[in-house]
C-alpha cells in the first residue's frame, strides 16, 4: 500500500513540476493544482493507522483499529485551501490575459522588456 501511495504521489508531483516549467500560464496553474493534490495524497499516506472508517461507535477493537482520523481532517483543510488558492491563481491569470491578450510567458517577458525600455527612455529624456 505504501508503494502504491508513493508511486501515485511521485507521478502527480512529477507531472505537476513538468507543467510548472511550461510556457503557458494555464499549464502552470494546472501544474500547481497537480502538486497540491500530490501533497494532499501525501498527507493521507502519512496516517498512522489503517482500518475501517473512524465513525462512532468504533466497534469492538477500540480506537487503535480504525483509520487515523487526524490526517483526514488535515487533508480536508488542505483541499479547501488549495481549492481557494487555485481559484485565486486562475483569476490572476485571467487578469493577466485581459491586459496582455496572451498567456505565453515569452510574450509577457517581451512586454516586460518594452516597459523597462520605455522607462529608461523616459528617465534619459528627463535628465537632459
Amino acid at each position, binding site marked *: 500500500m505504501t508503494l502504491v501511495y508513493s508511486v501515485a504521489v511521485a507521478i502527480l508531483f512529477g507531472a505537476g513540476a513538468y507543467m510548472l516549467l511550461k510556457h503557458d500560464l494555464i499549464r502552470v496553474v494546472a501544474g500547481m493544482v497537480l502538486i497540491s493534490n500530490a501533497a494532499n495524497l501525501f498527507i493521507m499516506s502519512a496516517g498512522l493507522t489503517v482500518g475501517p472508517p473512524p465513525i462512532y461507535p468504533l466497534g469492538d477493537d477500540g480506537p487503535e483499529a480504525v483509520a487515523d482520523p*487526524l490526517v483526514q481532517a488535515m487533508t480536508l*483543510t488542505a483541499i479547501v485551501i488549495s481549492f481557494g488558492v487555485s481559484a485565486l491563481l486562475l483569476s490572476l491569470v485571467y487578469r493577466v490575459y485581459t491586459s496582455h491578450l496572451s498567456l505565453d510567458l515569452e510574450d509577457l517577458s517581451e512586454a516586460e522588456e518594452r516597459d523597462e525600455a520605455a522607462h529608461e527612455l523616459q528617465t534619459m529624456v528627463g535628465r537632459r
Partner: protein
Amino acid sequence: MLTLPLAIAWFAAVALATVDGRQRRFGWAAVGALAATLAATVWLGVEVVRDGPVEVVAGGWPEGVGITLRADALGVTFAVLSLAVLLVALAYEVIGGVRSRVFPALVLFMAVGLTGLCLTGDVFNFYVFFEIAMISAYVLATYGEWTRQLRAATIFATVNLLGSVLFLIAIASLYHLTGSLDMRVIARTVPVVQENPAVLSATLIFVAFGVKLGLFPFHFWLAAVYTGTRPAVAAILSGALANIGSYGLLRFGGDLLPRELERGAPVLLVLGAASIVYGALQAVSCGAPSEVLAYSSIGQVGYILVALAVGGEVGFAASVLYSVVNSVNKTLLFLAVPLRGWLVGGALAVGAFSVAGLPPAVGFFGKAALFRAGIAEGSTALLVLLFVGGALSFVYLFQLYGRRFWVIEPPDTGDCPPLGAVAGPSLLAHRLLVLALAGVVVGLGIWPEPLLALSAEAAAVLPAAR
C-alpha cells in the same frame, strides 16, 4: 486573553470585507481595529514576559486532543512587530487615499494570519494561519493593478504556493514521524526518532521559509514584486510578511528541530553569506530606489540566517534582534523613498544609518549583536563578511539618498507607472508618519535596553539556546 487579538482582527476583517474600503471612514475604522489588536497583543506580551508562557486549548477540548494556542516571548515579539508594521503601512495608505475596496480588509486578514501563526502551538494550525497571510499577500501584490504588477504577482503567487506545498508535505512527514501535531510534543519526540527522515523534513521546511524570506537561491520572485508595487504594500511585504520566514526558521529550527539545525548550520552559513554579498552587490549596481531596497532586503535577511546558523544564546538573540531592526528599517525606507522634503530626507538618512549599522540608530545594536555572534563563533571570515556587507549597504543607501535628494528628477508622467518609487501624494501627514517612525528608530537606538532584554528573553524560549 490569548484569543482576543485574533478575535478583534478577524471580526473586523470580515466586517470590512463587506464594505467599500475606499471610503475614508472605513479606512480609519480598519486602522482603529488594527490598533486595538496591537494593544491586545502588547498586553498579552507584557503578561507573557512577566508570568511566563500562556496556553489555551481551543474549544474546551482536553490537552493533547484540541488545537493548542500558546504565547511565549518569541511568538509575542514577532506578533507585536508584524502588527506594528501593518498598522503604520495601513495608516500611510489611508492618509493618501485607498484605491481598492478590499485593501483595509486584506491588511486585517494578514494581521490575523501573522498574529495567529506566532501564537499557535500546533504545526498544522501554523500552516493554516500562514496560508491566510499568504493569500492576502497574493492579492495585495496586485494592489494598483498595473500590468507589470499583475505579471509580478503571478510569479509571486506561483513560487510561494510551491513553497507552501513543500511546507505542508514537511508537516505531514513530521506528523508521521512523531505522531503529533503539537509543537511541544514534536520537540520532545524528534530527538528519539530516526535522523534521516527528520533531516528531510527540516530541509523542506528550510526551503519553504527561504522562499518566503527571499534568501539567495530562492529570491528571484522578490525584486519584481517589491519594485512594481506601492510603497505601503512593499513595506507590508518586506516588514511584516517576511517575518513569517524569520519566525518560522527560529521556531522550527531552534525549537522543534535543533539537532537538524545544528547539522545544517554550515549550509545556512554559506547561503546567508551568499545572500549578503549578492544582495549588496545587486543593490549597489541598481538605479531605481525601490530596486535598491528590494535587493537590500535579500542582503539583510542573509544576516538573520547567519545569526541563526551561529546558534546558541548569542546567535538566536542576534537573529531576533536583527529581524526586529530589519523590519522597522525596511518599513521606514520603503515609506520614505517616494516622499520629498527635508523632513523626509532626515528620516531617510536615519533609515540608511540604521541599515548600515551606525549609531545613534537602532541598527547599530543589530550589527553589534551580529558581531558578538561572529566572535562567539570565532570565525574571522564571518567578521570580514559582516564588515564588508555593512560597508556596501552604506554605499548603496547613500547613493540612493544622493539620487533622491540631490538630483532633480524628471516629473512622472501619469499613465506609465515608473519602475522606481511609485509616486503618490506626498502629504504633510505622510511626512510626519515617516518622521515618527524615524524617531522610533533613533529612540530605540538611544535607549535599547528593553529591546535587547526582549530579544534575549525571546531567544531563551528556544531549547537550543540553553
